[in-house]
C-alpha cells in the first residue's frame, strides 16, 4: 500500500551520497544555468523547426490538391477565355470572363501555398493520388470533369450558339468534377487556409452551376 511508494522515493534519495552535497552546491548553479541555456536553445530550435515540420509535405493531400486544382483550374481559364473572347451571347461572355479571372486568381493563391510550404509546383505523384481512389478517376491524364483535347479543339472551332452550348456543357462537367475534388480536400485537410479557400471555391462553383444550367436552358441546349 504505502510501503512501495516510500521505497521508491527513498531509493532515489539514496542514489545521491551525502558527501556529494558540497560538490553539488559548488557546481549546482552553473549546471542549472547551463541546463536552462541548453533548454532555451532546444526550445528555440524546436520553435523554429515546428512550422517546417508541421506544414503540408510533398505527398500531403493539401499539396496534391493545390497542384491538381491548379491544372484543373487552368483548363477552366482556357475555356472561360474562349467564351469571353468569342461568344456572341452577353451572359455567356460574362460568365466566361468571370470564371476565367476568378480561377486564375485562385491559381495564384494555390501556387503561393506551394511556395510558402517550400514545395514545387510539379508533384512526384500521379494526378489525384492524394484522394482515396482518386487515381481511378483519371482518364488519359485528365482529372474529373476535364475536357479532352478533342473537346477543346471542338470548342476552339465552334461559332455562335454552338460555341455557347458547348462551352456551357463543358463547364458544367468541369465544375462537377472540380467540386468532387474540393470535397476530397475538405475531407482530408484541417489546414485552415486550405479549408477556407476550398469552401469558397465550392460555393462559387455551385453558384456558377446554377447560372450555367439556366443559361444552357435558355439557349435550349
Amino acid at each position, binding site marked *: 500500500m504505502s510501503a512501495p511508494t516510500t521505497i521508491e*522515493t527513498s531509493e*532515489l534519495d539514496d*542514489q545521491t551520497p551525502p558527501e556529494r552535497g558540497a560538490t553539488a552546491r559548488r557546481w549546482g548553479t552553473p549546471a542549472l544555468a547551463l541546463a536552462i541555456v541548453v533548454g532555451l536553445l*532546444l526550445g528555440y530550435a524546436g520553435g523554429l523547426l515546428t512550422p517546417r515540420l508541421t506544414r503540408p509535405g*510533398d505527398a500531403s493531400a493539401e499539396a496534391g490538391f493545390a497542384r491538381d486544382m491548379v*491544372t484543373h483550374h487552368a483548363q477552366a*481559364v482556357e475555356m472561360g477565355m474562349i467564351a469571353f473572347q468569342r461568344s456572341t451571347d452577353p451572359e455567356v461572355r460574362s460568365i466566361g470572363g468571370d470564371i476565367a479571372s476568378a480561377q486564375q486568381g485562385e491559381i495564384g493563391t494555390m*501556387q503561393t501555398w506551394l511556395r510558402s510550404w517550400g514545395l514545387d509546383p510539379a508533384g512526384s505523384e500521379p494526378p489525384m493520388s492524394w484522394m482515396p481512389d482518386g487515381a481511378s478517376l483519371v482518364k488519359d491524364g485528365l482529372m474529373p470533369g476535364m475536357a479532352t483535347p478533342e473537346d477543346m479543339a471542338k470548342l476552339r472551332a465552334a461559332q455562335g450558339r454552338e460555341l455557347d452550348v458547348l462551352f456551357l456543357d463543358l463547364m458544367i462537367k468541369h465544375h462537377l468534377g472540380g467540386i468532387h475534388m474540393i470535397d476530397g480536400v475538405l475531407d482530408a485537410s484541417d489546414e485552415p487556409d486550405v479549408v477556407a479557400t476550398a469552401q469558397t471555391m465550392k460555393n462559387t462553383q455551385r453558384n456558377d452551376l446554377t447560372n450555367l444550367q439556366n443559361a444552357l436552358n435558355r439557349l435550349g441546349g
Partner: protein
Amino acid sequence: MSISTPGGPERRPTVVSTGKKPAAGRPAAGAKAGSGKPTGPRPGAGGKGRKPVTPVKVSQGRAWGPIALFVAVGVLAASIIGYGAWASFQGSKPWEERAAEIDGIVNFRKTDKTLVEGGNHQAGSITYSVLPPVAGPHNPSWQNCMGDVYDAPIANEHAVHSLEHGTVWVTYRPDLPADQVSKLAEKVRGKEKLMLSPFEGLDKPISLQAWGYQLKVDNADDKRIDDFIKALRVNASIEGPTALCSQGITATGTTPRDGAQMPQG
C-alpha cells in the same frame, strides 16, 4: 518517471538521521524502506535485509540511472531535431540547386547570361544559337502549353515564348519508337506548363527545354526526365507561376504565325 536527483543531496541526511521519509510521512514505512529497497526495482543492489550496508554501498557510486536517462533523452531529442532539420532543409533546397544536381543538365543561365535575359517580342523567323532553343527573343504569340501533345514539329518562335511562361518543352527525334513517344506523352498530357513535339535534327533521341536549361537523354524511361520536370516546370518561369499557357497557338508547323494569338483550332 520521477527524477528527484537534484533534490537528493539536501534531503539525504534527513533520511539517514531519522530513518523517515518526509515525502512518505510515515516513520514506520520509512524504516521499512531501508530494508525493502535493495529488492526494489533497481537491479544489482545486493542482498536483502541488511539495513546499514545498503546506503553505504549506494553512496559510493554516482546516480548512473538518471544520468543515463538524461543522456538517452538528450541524444534522442537531439537526433529527432537534427533529423527534422536535415530533412526539411534538404527538402526545401532551392530548385536551382536541385536542377544543378541533375546529371548532364546544361544551365545557360550561367554560361550565357545575355541569352536568357529576356523576352523581347519579335515577328517573323528567328535564328537561335542553341537548338532546340532554350531562351531568347520570341514571337508575341506563345505555343499552347496546356499539356498539349503535338504530333508534328512546332515553331521555335512560339515555343520559346512558352518556355518564358514556365513550360518544360519535351522534344524527341522523329525516329523515336512509338512506345517511347507514348511514354513521353503520358508524362505531358493534361498538365499545363508541359508540351511535347517532335524536333528535326536532334543529336540525341530526347531533349528537354526550360527557360535557360536543357537536358538530353537517350531513353523515355530515364529518371532524369522526371527530375527535370519536377525542378523546372513553372519554377523556371521568368514571369511567375501565373503566366498563361492557354490562348496560345495550337497549330503545328515550324513557320511562326504573326498576329495569330487566337487559338487556331
